[in-house]
């Protein structure tokens, strides 16, 4: 069916499609190239495409001992917040998908509505509470905020996946005398591997890229990569090549995860409205 077009239109499709995509991701390509240039080449238009590649920027960035700290902070906060959100959200999604009650619809919509609260609307109280509780610039503080922000998405995404699992399977386990824990452990969790994986993936990506709270509530100890990159905005000195290297390292893990999981992320990003 698809091979209906003449070969000339296929060539045209090829050129148009790839030209559009390359133009769209050009900033990323350009950043990638710049990260292998010397600082002088990075600033000179003559060295746009032809230059002597160097790994010096990556060495310098990684040698700044605190770079690793920021990277670990990103890993730590996004993974911990995601696990917490899954732990709290999984039972809720199970209950609402398989044992819906009259209130389930309302509850789901209410959970969705919490996602609408603008972070800046609660910046002041969170800042004051965190200051009084010693949570400013702490991992725990960020993990909690990331968890709050992602819990609605986690619940909705798992719920949307669970709705696709035939209820009879869980039913059968229950008739065979499986308790709730056995039902989770031996039936639902093995069945929902892809669901859990893509939900965790989306949550980690959103935490990793979160910038509002990490910029405003961290300084050195718990700062994530998103906050660290923001320090390159200081006008003194133009270190474009090093900025590019740091940026490539910061976005690479999430970019790869996004490429792998893109198809499944749609569900979570649209609260199950597009599958």
């Amino acid at each position, binding site marked *: 069916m698809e091979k209906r077009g003449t070969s000339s239109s296929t060539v045209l499709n090829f050129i148009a499609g790839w030209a559009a995509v390359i133009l769209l991701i050009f900033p990323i390509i350009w950043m990638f190239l710049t990260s292998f240039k010397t600082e002088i080449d990075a600033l000179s238009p003559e060295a746009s495409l032809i230059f002597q590649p160097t790994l010096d920027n990556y060495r310098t960035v990684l040698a700044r001992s605190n770079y690793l700290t920021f990277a670990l902070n990103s890993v730590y906060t996004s993974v911990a917040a995601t696990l917490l959100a899954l732990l709290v959200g999984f039972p809720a999604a199970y*209950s609402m998908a398989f044992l819906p009650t009259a209130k389930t619809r309302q509850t789901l919509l209410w959970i969705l509505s919490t996602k609408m609260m603008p972070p800046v609307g609660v910046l002041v109280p969170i800042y004051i509470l965190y200051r009084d509780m010693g949570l400013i610039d702490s991992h725990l503080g960020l993990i909690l905020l990331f968890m709050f922000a992602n819990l609605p998405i986690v619940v909705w995404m798992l719920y949307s996946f669970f709705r696709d699992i035939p209820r009879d399977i869980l039913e059968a386990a229950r008739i065979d005398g499986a308790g709730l824990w056995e039902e989770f452990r031996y039936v639902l969790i093995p069945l929902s591997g892809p669901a859990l994986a893509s939900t965790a993936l989306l949550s980690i990506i959103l935490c990793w890229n979160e910038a509002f709270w990490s910029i405003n509530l961290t300084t050195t100890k718990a700062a994530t990569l998103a906050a660290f990159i923001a320090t390159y905005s200081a006008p003194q000195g133009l270190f474009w090549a090093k900025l590019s290297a740091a940026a490539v390292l910061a976005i690479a893990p999430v970019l790869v995860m996004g490429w792998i999981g893109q198809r499944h992320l749609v569900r979570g990003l649209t609260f199950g409205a597009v599958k």
Partner: protein
Amino acid sequence: MNSTSSAVQHGIAQMESSTRAESIGPKTYLVAPSVAVLLVWITVPTVMTFWFSFQHYNLVNTAGREFIGFANYLYFFSSSSLTIAALNSIYVVLGVIAITVCLGIGLVLLLDRDFTGARIARVLAISPFFVMPTVAALIWKNLLLDPVNGLLATVLGLVGLPAVDWFGTFPMFSIIVIIAWQWIGFSTLILLTALQSLDHELKEAAAMDGAGAFATFRFIVLPHLARPIGIIVMIETIFLLSVFAEIFVTTSGGPGLASTNLSFLIYVQALLRFDVGLASTGGVISIILANVVAYFLAKTVSRSLEI
């Protein structure tokens, strides 16, 4: 499967499930942790924001803390900064949505066709969405848009056009371009997923009936994309009302207030001027604004809920 029979099945499933729920008891304790966590997260800070917004309260000088009624609101509404910031917030939302939806549709129409490497191209096209905001903003600000050494200035120079100080001259426009670039990845992802569920035979049939490319797009593709577009508009609105990092690392809200949105205005009041009262007033206004939008989103999404 037509909708009536599936609705009937739903009804039966619902009846079954309600009797079943009775037999094994309600499982509210499974939902309770999520609801409790979110309830605390929503209620406590929101109540505090409202409470602070009626006070004269500065973190640097806490001596003069007192209840002042609506004075903060009166100050806010009489100063031009609120109007400027609210308008800038709206410009971001409208500008980015217009760009991402229009370019997204164009891109998706190109990518939905069959060509060598189409699958790889589709995956690559969503990349901008996964780039963290601080990286996106700094790459655009320096490598691409810098008036002296930026790539665009070099290219414009080759054609004989003068370099432009993008962030000094057109701060809002530049910020909108950066944010739109990131969100094109999002709209492409959603539209592509939606378009691939469109029956290709429908398009074939239309073509056989003599429908041109435009008619096919207008009467078959566009109606199919209407709902995904609605969802893109709603979700982007929620996130775009809270844009912060892109402004923080590029213009810092300037020149003057030219690129200050509500988020940035509140940030300045709270964490740079330590004025808790005024910042909270801004917070209340942004919460109300977001809730108006949220109402419409909930209505749209709830229609797709099959409970």
